[in-house]
């Protein structure tokens, strides 16, 4: 049965009418949508707590772990965390960032305590404005003319860590070791503590001694060069102790190039990139692993408890360390 022309006309008319209605409806629906995607409301006072992490270096792997741990805790607690830091290691820029964070009236600042007057002054200014500052990884130095103004320190107990790593090393070497130490100069106090505790254990052991201590800049290449030079000057060294992550990287590279009459044992800190891999390959033999994410977490938790619940944290909050060893012993 063929449909009549009138019916076809009617159907077409109805379809066109629907088209018009649909188009107008679509138009209307589009009109109801905002032209720009949902505008983001500007956060105002009384909103969620806002903390800022000011790292000494933006690309610092440890500090990025700190930030990750802090963000995780922040999302659990319903606060917000921002991460910032100088693109190049620069104390001036660090101070500026601290001041800007204070001027932005954030609720809390998480940064590294440094033995630098300008940094300490910046921390003091922030505290003066009522912004609590928590130092992480490294604490502010204490001195008579510059009291500590930070609320708390969250980090490793470097003394304990230094002692643990020395004890572990001597156990593996059966008390025999001629140690060369490579340290850097960024945070003297922290380095001092790590070296000091290590030295105390070694010196109390009859078969072990410290042959040399070199200090380098916070630079992998420089650290490697310094280690190489030390090994040439003191060929009797059987163990190299690097007291920071950067130094450890440099030392690992230089030790691989030294062709001495005996293998060199490497003791490292914070070998972050692939610790298990390095341990398994035998390039690093004893290693102290800190817990930077826990540092971030504890810092955020301490700030949140302080600001929301008026719980003043302990002056020093320790984070756990892990001493790991592996690979074949060189002798």
């Amino acid at each position, binding site marked *: 049965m063929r449909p009549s022309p*009138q019916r076809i006309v009617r159907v077409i*008319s109805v379809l*066109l009418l629907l088209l018009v209605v649909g188009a*107008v409806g679509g138009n209307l629906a589009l009109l109801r949508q905002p032209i*720009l995607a949902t*505008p983001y409301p500007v956060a105002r006072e009384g909103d969620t707590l806002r903390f800022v992490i000011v790292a000494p270096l933006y690309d610092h792997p440890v500090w990025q772990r700190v930030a990750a741990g802090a963000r995780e805790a922040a999302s659990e607690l319903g606060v917000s965390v921002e991460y910032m830091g100088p693109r190049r290691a620069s104390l001036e820029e660090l101070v500026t960032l601290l001041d*800007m964070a204070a001027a932005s009236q954030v609720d809390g600042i998480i940064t590294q305590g440094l033995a630098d007057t300008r940094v300490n002054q910046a921390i003091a200014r922030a505290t003066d*404005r009522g912004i609590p500052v928590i130092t992480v990884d490294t604490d502010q130095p204490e001195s008579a003319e510059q009291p500590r103004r930070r609320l708390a320190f969250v980090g490793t107990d470097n003394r304990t860590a230094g002692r643990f790593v020395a004890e572990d090393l001597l156990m593996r070497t059966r008390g025999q070791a001629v140690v060369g130490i490579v340290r850097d100069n960024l945070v003297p106090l922290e380095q001092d503590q790590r070296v000091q505790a290590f030295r105390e254990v070694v010196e109390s052991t009859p078969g072990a001694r410290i042959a040399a201590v070199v200090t380098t800049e916070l630079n992998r290449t420089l650290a490697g060069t310094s280690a190489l030079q030390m090994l040439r000057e003191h060929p009797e060294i059987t163990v190299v102790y690097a007291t920071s992550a950067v130094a450890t990287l440099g030392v690992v590279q230089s030790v691989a190039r030294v062709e001495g009459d005996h293998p060199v044992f490497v003791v490292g800190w914070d070998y972050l990139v692939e610790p298990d891999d390095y341990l398994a390959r035998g390039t690093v033999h004893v290693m102290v692993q800190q817990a930077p994410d826990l540092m971030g977490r504890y810092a955020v938790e301490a700030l949140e408890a302080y600001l929301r619940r008026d719980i003043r944290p302990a002056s020093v909050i320790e984070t756990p360390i892990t001493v790991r060893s592996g690979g074949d012993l060189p002798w």
Partner: protein
Amino acid sequence: MVRNTLQARLMATFLLVVTSLFVAGLLALAHARATARTYQDRLTDLVKVTELTQAVSEAADVLGRLATGPSPDRTLNELNQIRDRIYRLRQELPTATASPASARLLADLDAVADSFLIESGAAAYAFLGNDLERYFQHDREASLTAGYLRDVADRLLASEVEAYREVYPQVMRREWTLQNLNFLVLLSVTALALILSWWFARDVAEPLRVLAAAAGRISAGDLDGPPVQIQSTEELQVLGQAFNQMQDSLRRRMAELNEKVLLERRLQVQEMERLRMETLLREAELRALQSQVNPHFLFNTLNMVAKMAMLEGADRTCSLLETVSDLMRYSLGKLDQPVTLAEEVEQVRRYATIQSERFRGRFAFRFEVDHSALGLHVPCMTLQPLVENAVIHGIGNREEGGTVTIRVRSLGDTVRVEVEDDGVGIPPDKLAVLNAGAGASGVIRGHTTGLGLQNVRERLQMFWSRPVSLVVESQVGRGTRVTLDLPANREGGEPVADLGG
């Protein structure tokens, strides 16, 4: 219920088209306005940010001039004004931005401005309190903070631009969609209008074509076509109904006319039949009258008796019988044909002879005849019944007898015939009946031919196709006179002859 009128349809179409276009236009306008408004809002936001930055920088400069400038009071006043402006500008800062980063930076901007106000306020108070060391410290802080503010503002502007760079394709896509939708509306409405116009035109044209065809058929004389069926708008349906009613009433009127003509024809036929019947009746009557005399038998017998009388030598009897025979022959032979008045008079003479012979001496007949009038054609047996009446009813009832006078005179256009007797006369009441004409025939029907006065009157009337004057005058005891005026120009006589044939 929506009425299906042409007007309603046109209005609906018009409304649909206009409304659709109006709505589409309105929407396009609303979109354009919304877009412009958004851009304007964003621009205003950025302008506010810039204004705030500039005000803070200005305030920092003014604050620095406080210790070094010429008039501390005026500078302080200026500083306060700028600080007020900063307060106001902070209130006017946008509450929403295009990206979360911008939102963060905007909050920072506000907070940094607040910090600046605090520091600058502290510096101003320190200056007023003559604590220059603190003043310089706070001034430095304020200056740094102003620098931070510029930094934040720069980052905010960059962030906003970045956000728009990301959003721009969306906005463009939205514009594109809108344009296409509006184009679609335009296209659909145009198509719809075209289709509906075509539809309406067809709905109007088709019934008109049907009506025109029907009108043509009717004007050609065919009234019996089927009624037109129109399925269209109300107006055209009304037109169709009116047309059908017109056709119907035309058809009815024509039928009535035909019936009337038929009726008239039937009436005419009836009339003619009635006339024919009447004539037949007359004829029958005539035949009956004629048959009262047993004509041929008597006639033949009389002839035979006359021959015998002559053979026996009775000449007088023979003559009488011949007269009687003639009398009878006349009555029998020419009854259905017009005769001359002369023949009629001759017949009456024969009758008079016989009656004179029968009643010897008692009856006398006088004839006063104008011979010029005798050529007139008259119906047969016109005169004799009058004479018979005069003899039987007039003088026949008188003992001493009487005289009957027959006069025929020409009076120009008529011929007057008078039959007069000096008999007993007729009483006035009977006379009135006789003169009235109708219904008297039975009374006066007498002997011999038996044709009464009324019969004579009617036959004359039929012969001339008009009434003929037949007047009876009488005085009791003195006599009776019957006067007959016959038209001299004999016209219309022929039908009677035909009827008789």
